[in-house]
């Protein structure tokens, strides 16, 4: 797995991971803005709630795919190192909350009232996970 990832990224596993993690963290912030429009909390003259919600769903699907890619790269290349305990805890929490949010959206509709809180939790966990690993290379 490690060799495959090194070959795939031409030796730049960490760098590719940082780029992808930064992309999803920024998109997570954009997602919060879209849902603020979607829920009618933010009114914009050029964007109505329905298209904002649809864009949120489409971008969210992409974010999940990229996030899983980053997770696979991280576990496949770095494994579970002791000195990255905080990053691992945050990343696992992010994946669990994200999975629960998707379950609520697709199946557990009676829990729909939890979606705003779950969305904000996912957003915060994305940034916390980013700060616990990628930030040291960029900030």
């Amino acid at each position, binding site marked *: 797995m490690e060799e495959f990832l090194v070959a795939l990224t*031409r*030796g*730049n596993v*960490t*760098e590719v991971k*940082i*780029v992808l993690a*930064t*992309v999803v963290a*920024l*998109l997570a912030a*954009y997602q919060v803005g*879209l849902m603020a429009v979607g829920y009618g909390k933010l009114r914009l003259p*050029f*964007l*109505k709630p*329905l*298209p*904002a919600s*649809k*864009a949120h769903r*489409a*971008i969210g699907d*992409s974010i999940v795919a990229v996030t899983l890619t980053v997770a696979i790269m991280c576990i496949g290349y770095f494994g579970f190192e002791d000195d990255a305990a905080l990053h691992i805890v945050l990343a696992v929490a992010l994946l669990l909350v994200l999975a629960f949010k998707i379950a609520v959206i697709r199946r557990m509709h009676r829990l729909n009232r939890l979606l705003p809180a779950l969305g904000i939790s996912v957003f915060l966990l994305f940034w916390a996970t980013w700060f616990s690993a990628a930030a040291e*290379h*960029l900030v």
Partner: protein
Amino acid sequence: MAEEPARKDGGGAQLLGSLAAALLIVAAAIWAVTARLGPTSIAELEAAEEAAEAAEEAGEEKAEESGGGRRRRGRDR
């Protein structure tokens, strides 16, 4: 039912615009992060390795010239 007029009012265009904005965010993030990280780390690592090897070789040559020069002469004989 309320969704249809929204679509006719340019909902599709708004959706596409939102997705285009997301693509712009992605492109800007990739550009900014790669600019910050610099050229491929592989190239940097190789350059650093080559510089270290060159410095090591230069050090060895100097050592040979100062102390090992006699040895070389001896070998030539």
